[in-house]
């Protein structure tokens, strides 16, 4: 729905186009660099001047997913002929694969914790926001302010008490603990954002649904939720991005079982020298889920405003 008074001239369009493409290139350059580095060999990754054209290799990805050890000379001689391609790749450097690395495990932790906490933050946030928006909640404004106030300091400021509490409760290094923590941090954001979206939906729709033979919950589910979907989707993206990228708490509270990808990826550096291609490969894979999630929900984000069929 365009409200432009006059159509932009073709010169203006060109100018705007160049500006947008230029800005996009600048913001995406680091991303391209990371993706490219993931496919470089170790010498190429640290070459100076940096190599823009290089011979691509998946060595970084193989290193990322495996643990290796130096091959003894005897073993090298008695090597069997029908080795898989990734073993051959590693053997060129005089190494052999001894097992999978921890990366897929950590990555999977990130998926569980990131999406799990997003799910809970959205479900609880929607319920709370609906109540704030539609019911007479005593001290509503104070409560909303209180919820917002949890955002007024950086979450890490409460790291020590949370660490102690988690230790006491046995939540250290557990999936449940991390989901709980990220849900708690995201909840204030989701309550406030979704509250705003639900406030914009006129209450008349629900009243109509109540008259039409639906219960309050059915009216919420059938009438409010579809209209708030756009807002809820964008809130979910924000929540996921926070939980997915969170580093400080993850370093502090997880070490083994529940460690997420962000604290793990930098530790790859220590494996057999500075393995930049492997780090870049890890970062690339780490970017994918949020990217896919955002692209999937993009339709909702851009679907546009539903003009309500309510006479104002």
């Amino acid at each position, binding site marked *: 729905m365009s409200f432009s008074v006059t159509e932009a001239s073709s010169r203006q369009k060109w100018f705007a186009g160049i500006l947008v493409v230029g800005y996009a290139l600048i913001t995406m350059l680091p991303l391209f660099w990371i993706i490219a580095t993931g496919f470089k060999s170790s010498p190429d990754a640290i070459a100076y001047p940096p190599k823009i054209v290089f011979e691509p290799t998946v060595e970084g990805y193989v290193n990322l997913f495996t643990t290796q050890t130096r091959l003894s000379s005897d073993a090298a001689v008695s090597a069997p002929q029908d080795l898989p391609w990734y073993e051959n790749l590693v053997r060129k450097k005089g190494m052999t694969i001894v097992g999978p690395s921890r990366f897929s495990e950590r990555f999977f932790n990130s998926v569980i914790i990131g999406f799990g906490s997003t799910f809970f933050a959205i479900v609880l946030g929607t319920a709370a926001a609906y109540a704030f928006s539609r019911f007479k909640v005593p001290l509503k404004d104070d409560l909303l302010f209180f919820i917002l106030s949890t955002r007024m300091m950086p979450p890490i400021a409460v790291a020590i008490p949370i660490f102690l509490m988690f230790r006491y409760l046995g939540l250290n290094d557990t999936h449940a603990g991390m989901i709980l923590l990220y849900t708690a941090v995201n909840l204030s954001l989701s309550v406030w954002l979704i509250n705003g979206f639900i406030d914009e939906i*006129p209450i*008349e*729709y629900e*009243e*109509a*649904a*109540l*008259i*039409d*033979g*639906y*219960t*309050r919950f*059915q009216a919420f589910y059938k*009438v409010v939720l*579809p*209209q708030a979907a756009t807002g809820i989707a964008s809130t979910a993206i924000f929540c996921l991005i926070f939980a997915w990228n969170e580093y400080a708490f993850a370093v502090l509270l997880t070490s083994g079982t529940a460690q997420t990808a962000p604290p793990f990826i930098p530790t790859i550096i220590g494996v057999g020298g500075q393995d930049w291609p492997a780090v870049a490969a890890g970062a690339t894979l780490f970017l994918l889920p949020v990217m896919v999630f955002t692209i999937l929900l993009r339709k909702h984000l851009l679907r546009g405003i*539903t*003009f*309500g*069929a*309510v*006479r*104002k």
Partner: protein
Amino acid sequence: MAEVVLDNVTKSFGDTVALDQVSMTIEDGSFVVLLGPTGAGKTTTLRMVSGLDTPDSGDVLVDGRSMKGLMPALRNVAMVFQQYSLYPHLTVRQNLEFPLKSPLLNTPQNEIDQKVAAVSEILQITHKLDNKTTALSGGEMQRVSIGRALVRDPSIYLMDEPLSSLDAKLRADLRIELKGIQANSGATLLYVTHDQIEAMTMATHVGVLDSGKLVQFGPPREIYENPISIYAASRLGQPRINIVPAHLFEGAPAGAKLIGLRPEQIAQGTGEESFVTRVEHLGDQTRLHLSFKDHDLITVTDAHTELKTGDIVKIKPQKPFYFDASGARIAGREN
């Protein structure tokens, strides 16, 4: 269909008394129109019956059954909202199907299709059935909104100015349709309007509300011909009733402070002189604006009148209404 009784219903919003001890019996099959200016409590009355709001005191009974504590869904009422309230994420068809698909009714699909087809035919929206409601004009939205009520078979229909944003022709069509549907099906209908033609032509009973109080309730002709107060008299009549001091004319009974003259209560040709200040030819009738002893009067005269501004017309009250200082009607001498 059902009889609906409001029994001493009182409702306040904060300090504002929206309804003050309103009692009303809406007989089975009757068409009750509520009249009154904004804030008189018309919409609140509808919301009391629907269950969207509940009375502070008093009760609403449907067929003798108290509605206390019953959710709107369980009251089996259909309502047309003033603000349409069409579900924007659904198509016109889905909007019309919505009440039929509720868990309470759970109508079979072939029956739904039949009803939707029949109602959309009446409301002339068949060609819009697969449109999004957001792509409709105001008048179309209002028709869909009426249709969403008509697909059901409730104990009472509640309609809040359902024809207000339609153009004149459609309004006239739908007035006849609605009255026809109501008369044929024997539906009970509670209807809010500002439109005097709607009130006079459709209503079996008119309820006049004044600041939350029901001041008069009866057939429209009774309200028109025998109003109990200036307020009630002013609700109906186009042009409006003229209210001037009673002493301007002879023959006022004792205690009468004001005289109320509907256009047809001003006899022309005899009596005292007045000046024509303005002549409005409306086609089927002509309105005369008169100046009488420094008071303005509006009356109706022959459509083809030769009268023009500055002419003198003799006028005389004919069976007027007399009111005391508070505006209450007092019995007048027939003259």
